[in-house]
C-alpha cells in the first residue's frame, strides 16, 4: 500500500502553460496556480445503458471519455487578471481573460513528489478554462472562485 499524501506544498499542483513544455511540473515558465483549496481530476468514460428482454439487468457500452479538472481557490490578482512580466502567455493574460477568449491551454496536475524528481507522477492534457465564478461575502474576507478545465482530448499519465 502506498497512499499518495498531499501534506507538502509540492503535491497536487496544477501547472498551466501556453504550450505543453510550459505546462510540465517544474517548468520555468509554468503558471503554478496558487492558493488552491481542493482539486479534482475527473476521468469519466461516457456510457450508454440498454436493456434486452432476455436479461433482468441492464447492459452498457462505453462512448467517449469526458475529462475535466475542477478546483476551488482563493483569488490571486496576478493569476486571475494577468502579469505582464511573465513569458507564459496564459500568465500574461490571466485566467479570466484566457477563459473569456476561449484560448486553449496546456496543463498538468502533479500527484506526488517534487517537480522533476524521479518517480513523480502527473497527468497532463489540454483544454479550455471555464467555471470561473469569483465570489465575495462580508464574512469571507477574500475572493474565492471555482475553476474548471474542460479537457480537449485524453488525459495522459507520465511518470518521471
Amino acid at each position, binding site marked *: 500500500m502506498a497512499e499518495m499524501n*498531499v501534506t507538502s*506544498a509540492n503535491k497536487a499542483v496544477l501547472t498551466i502553460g501556453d504550450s505543453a513544455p510550459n505546462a510540465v511540473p517544474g517548468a520555468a515558465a509554468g503558471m503554478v496556480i496558487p*492558493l*488552491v483549496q481542493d482539486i479534482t481530476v475527473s476521468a469519466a468514460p461516457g456510457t450508454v445503458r440498454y436493456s434486452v428482454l432476455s436479461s433482468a439487468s441492464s447492459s452498457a457500452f462505453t462512448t467517449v471519455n469526458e475529462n475535466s479538472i475542477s478546483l476551488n481557490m482563493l483569488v490571486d490578482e496576478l493569476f486571475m487578471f494577468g502579469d505582464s512580466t511573465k513569458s507564459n502567455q496564459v500568465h500574461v493574460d490571466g485566467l479570466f481573460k484566457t477563459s473569456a477568449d476561449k484560448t486553449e491551454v496546456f496543463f498538468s496536475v502533479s500527484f506526488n513528489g517534487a517537480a522533476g524528481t524521479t518517480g513523480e507522477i502527473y497527468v497532463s492534457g489540454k483544454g479550455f478554462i471555464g467555471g470561473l465564478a469569483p465570489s465575495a461575502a462580508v464574512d469571507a474576507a477574500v475572493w474565492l472562485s471555482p475553476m474548471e478545465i474542460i479537457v480537449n482530448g485524453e488525459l495522459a499519465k507520465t511518470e518521471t
Partner: protein
Amino acid sequence: MAIRDDFITQITTDISGYTNFRVSSELPFDSGGNSLYIKNKKTVYVNTVREEQIQLYRTMDQNSVYQTQSIVQAFLTVDAKNQPSNIDDVIQAILNAKNVVTSPQLTEALVDNDIEDDYITYTFEYTILQT
C-alpha cells in the same frame, strides 16, 4: 496600545454627559490584590488588548489566510443596592464605544455583570476581527 487608547478616548467622550462617571487610563488597575474598579466605583478601567490569530483559510500550497481577533475588556463597578438611575444609559454609551474602530471586518460588544457583596461589576468586552 493604540486600540486601548482609542477605546479610552471614545468611552471618555461617550460618558462625558453622565455626572460622577469617569474613565481611568491607569495600568495596572490592581492594588494589593484588589481591583481598583471595585475600590473606585463609577470609574471605567480599560484593560490591555488581547490578540489572537485565527486561521481563516488553508490552501494546498501551505499558505494560509489569517484573521486577527483583538479583544478589549473594560470594567465598571457601582453600588448594587442603590444603582445610579442612569446606569442603563451609561452601559449603552460604553457599549457604543465599539464604533471607534472604523475599518474592521466585524466589531462586537457585549456586557456581563457580576454581583458580589453590595456591589455590581459590569464587564464589557469588545471583539474586533480584521483580516
